């Protein structure tokens, strides 16, 4: 464990139920979303049942990890003490190839380089021994 991991002070997801399952896959280096076993609809955030067809049957199916930037904001003044040192930073909504959208961050882009439609791919960030967050980076050429 590196020193940065032990010093991580930002809010973390609370591990429970389906949320724990989602983040456990991230910890294994796999971005997976729920997908309905009946109608095949992908969904995120995790839900108990399929809102499209009503089925309670689903699997954690693996995402391609690729998507494009859908929208973002640049936080210039932190409204939470844990992010005070991080400004300016940009929470970014990524639209995945599967159709679901994920709120995250593009780690290798400064906020003024972000563009709607920019291709990105998942890049996991181990923030504590228990939690790995799905972050994103510019898509490599082979994925473009």
């Amino acid at each position: 464990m590196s020193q940065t991991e032990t010093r991580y002070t930002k809010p973390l997801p609370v591990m429970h139920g389906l949320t724990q399952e989602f983040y456990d896959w991230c910890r294994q280096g796999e971005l997976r979303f729920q997908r309905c076993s009946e109608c095949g609809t992908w969904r995120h955030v995790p839900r108990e049942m399929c809102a499209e067809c009503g089925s309670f049957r689903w699997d954690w199916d693996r995402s391609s990890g690729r998507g494009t930037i859908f929208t973002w904001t640049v936080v210039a003044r932190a409204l939470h003490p844990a992010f005070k040192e991080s400004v300016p930073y940009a929470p970014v909504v990524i639209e995945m190839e599967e159709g679901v959208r994920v709120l995250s961050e593009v780690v290798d882009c400064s906020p003024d380089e972000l563009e709607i439609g920019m291709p990105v791919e998942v890049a996991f960030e181990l923030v504590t021994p228990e939690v790995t967050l799905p972050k994103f980076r510019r898509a490599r050429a082979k994925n473009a």
Partner: protein
Amino acid sequence: MSAGRRESSATPVAGVSLKDRACIVGIGETEYCRAPGSGLSLLALQLQAAVRAIEDAGLSANEIDGLMPFPNLGSAEGFAANLGTQNLRYAATIHTGGAAPVASLQAAASVVTMGIAKHVLIPAGWNGYSGFRVHKTVADQTFALPGGEIARDYYLPCGLTAPPQWYALMARRHMHEFGTKPEQLGCIAVTMRKHAQLNPKAVMCGKPLSLEDYMASPMLADPYRVFDCCIETDGAAAVVVTTVERARDLKKKPVYIMGTASGQPYPADELTNRKDILDTGLTSAAPEAFAMAGVSPRDVDFAEIYDCFTFEVLQQLEEVGFCKRGEGGAFVEGGRIELGGELPVNTHGGLLSEAHVLGMNHIVEATRQLRGEAEQRQVKDAQIGLVTGWGDFGDGGVAILRR
């Protein structure tokens, strides 16, 4: 079979229309202030507004038999005990954040129409400056976030922690799709401030704002600058609702609820995965309210739009139908939403420049306009006014009122 889709047009849902069945008969407000604060407890603040609204209606506290407190109040029982309301028949709280006051107006109209209670009191308010501070939403662990665990487990870790950041995601999308400009958001901030100069109660009265001031103000959550955000204030407001029949015997000229509806975007608890990210509760509620009222947006003389942030005004003007989706930027320009313009918006200065009273001040102002009591900011010959509420991740309430 596929689950139900959101309906895009007005569909009657009720057997009993609420059109012209209930009236606002009393309005009350405390002083609105920032530093040093109201000096009153949350309860005392709301009680003060309530007492004034009951007095304005010409009623006694004991004649109030319905109570719809804002979610922050806690207990209707305690409120009634303080007020001296001994015959409470009905008490309920609607949990849609800033949409709750208008949604409560809708519920109160149905409660009095069905004879469940005779006089319903709706108080709302907070020590938004000296007590709980919105801009620190999540730092305060006692506050329940919209979306609850979703916001905690999927938004907070990314630094999406407070309302201007949530809605900035929508504002940027609108700018991308329709070319909406920062100056157009600025135009909304400047107009609200201009109206506040005509309202001695407004916290920003005496503090004019130019478009240059706006453009020079620091960025908070791009595209939102500091002046795109509502102000944080202490204050409370309240209204009393009763039936048309009872309203005739009361002190003040009644203001009729012509049409009212509430709605939620889908999914309401998560704002990034909506098929249409600009979809709001008003998108479905507004056509229903207009259908009930039997009027169209063209018939509306003024609008009090829940203005937590500038873009939400633009967005609601579109979703209500005052202009088409994407045309809001041009609509707010050229003085159209100013007093004397085609559709004066937030004649009191709104949450941006009067005070943040959770939108209850919008209902109070609309009532005042329709009574002809708005003094130097009176909309000439105002017959029909529209009020919206916006809460959580875009829940909506709308009421079309007439004199």
